[in-house]
């Protein structure tokens, strides 16, 4: 997919004091895609998202959102963008209905019917004050506020963290509805891989301040495999497999996770070690774990 990127980052660095959080991030989010940004806690997902949206300044590199520098994003571009932060802060004294009206006033194009429908669907009490809402309700409300103007680019930072299973399904359904439109782009960070597997068509994995993988989810699943090798005799100490993420050898057998099981790797293993080889498919969670084994 080489279509135009809605968001692009090159060599983005950001440090906090002496701590380098982003160490050269390259990422291009194509228009119409649903990209899941995956990373361990403290991998820098939120920092990256804030940099992409111009909420944090970067120390080095370049970022473009709608072909503009995010720090100086124009009002017109901002109106095409929706963002749900990890920690929602809203005026506690306002009522749910008022917060929706207040937010609507900022946008020339606001779909009041859609916002109302979501408030109803997600069982948000319109006349309650925002202050005493539960974290899950607050998050739902933040999502409604981010969706009301039907943004072209929707960025969500851990959107499902505080949602119960029912709300999560509702949320995913809403995201899928949006994803049906080929012109709308979604970037969301998460560490819940099962949600990502349903909705995302692309995955970007952030590790040690860099994007270590970014491609279609299907490509990831088809290339990262766990291979069981059983040779006729004990494997030597020099046993190695190219592109291995992890190798465990025990006598005649080895368990190897590889980044790319294509390119004739399997035939090569069969020929080199005179072995039987079993290839195992991995879920995204397992792939994520394997990728964090190495190094």
């Amino acid at each position, binding site marked *: 997919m080489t279509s135009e990127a809605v968001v692009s980052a090159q060599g983005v660095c950001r440090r906090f004091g002496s701590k380098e959080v982003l160490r050269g991030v390259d990422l291009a989010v194509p228009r119409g895609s*649903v990209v899941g940004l995956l990373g361990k806690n403290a991998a820098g997902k939120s920092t990256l998202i804030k940099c992409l949206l111009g909420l944090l300044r970067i120390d080095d590199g370049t970022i473009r959102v709608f072909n503009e520098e995010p720090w100086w994003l124009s009002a017109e571009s901002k109106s095409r963008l929706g963002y749900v932060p990890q920690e929602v802060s809203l005026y506690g004294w306002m009522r749910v209905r008022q917060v929706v009206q207040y937010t609507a006033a900022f946008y020339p194009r606001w779909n009041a019917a859609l916002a109302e429908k979501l408030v109803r669907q997600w069982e948000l009490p319109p006349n309650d004050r925002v202050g005493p809402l539960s974290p899950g309700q607050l998050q739902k409300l933040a999502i409604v506020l981010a969706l009301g103007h039907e943004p072209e680019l929707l960025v969500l930072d851990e959107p499902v963290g505080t949602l119960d299973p029912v709300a999560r*399904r509702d949320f*995913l*359904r809403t995201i*899928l509805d949006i*994803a*049906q439109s080929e012109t709308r782009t979604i970037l969301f960070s998460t560490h819940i*891989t*099962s949600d990502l*597997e*349903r*909705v*995302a*068509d692309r995955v970007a994995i952030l590790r040690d301040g860099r994007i270590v993988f970014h491609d279609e*989810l*299907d490509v990831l*699943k*088809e290339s990262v495999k766990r291979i069981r090798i059983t040779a006729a005799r004990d494997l030597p100490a020099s046993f190695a497999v190219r592109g291995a993420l992890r190798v465990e050898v025990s006598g005649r057998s080895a368990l190897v996770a590889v980044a790319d099981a294509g390119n004739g790797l399997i035939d090569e293993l069969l020929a080199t070690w005179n072995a039987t080889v079993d290839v*195992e*498919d*991995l*879920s*995204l*969670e*397992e792939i994520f774990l394997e990728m964090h084994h190495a190094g």
Partner: protein
Amino acid sequence: MNDATFRFTVHPSSGLPIYRQIMDQVRALVAGGRLAPGDLLPSVRQLAAELQVNMMTISKAYARLEGDGVIERVRGTGMRVRPPSARGSLADRRQQLRPLVEQAVIRARQLQLDDAEIIEVVQSVLNEPVLKEHQP
């Protein structure tokens, strides 16, 4: 809603990409005769909504199945199951059948059936009226 919609299930967390799961299921439904040539598949939108997965996933599965000659696109109507085609040499076609037979034989061995008993079962399947009439 097309009733074929309810015949699909996906496991997003399986190692198999979702589009592959759908391809496998369409093939299995066709092989099992539960989708006959001419039957329509659910629309991409319908199936994506029902399974709650990205529409692109379904499109991809359908496009690959179309490429493989399992289904065909009918303008304005949707995707239709194609009559099975016997492409390839006799040796090729026998080769295609082999893994299925292997699976059946392995199962038969687990059930402790001997060769004669296995052949008897195969014979009786061949004699089922529906299958008999499709004999080349």
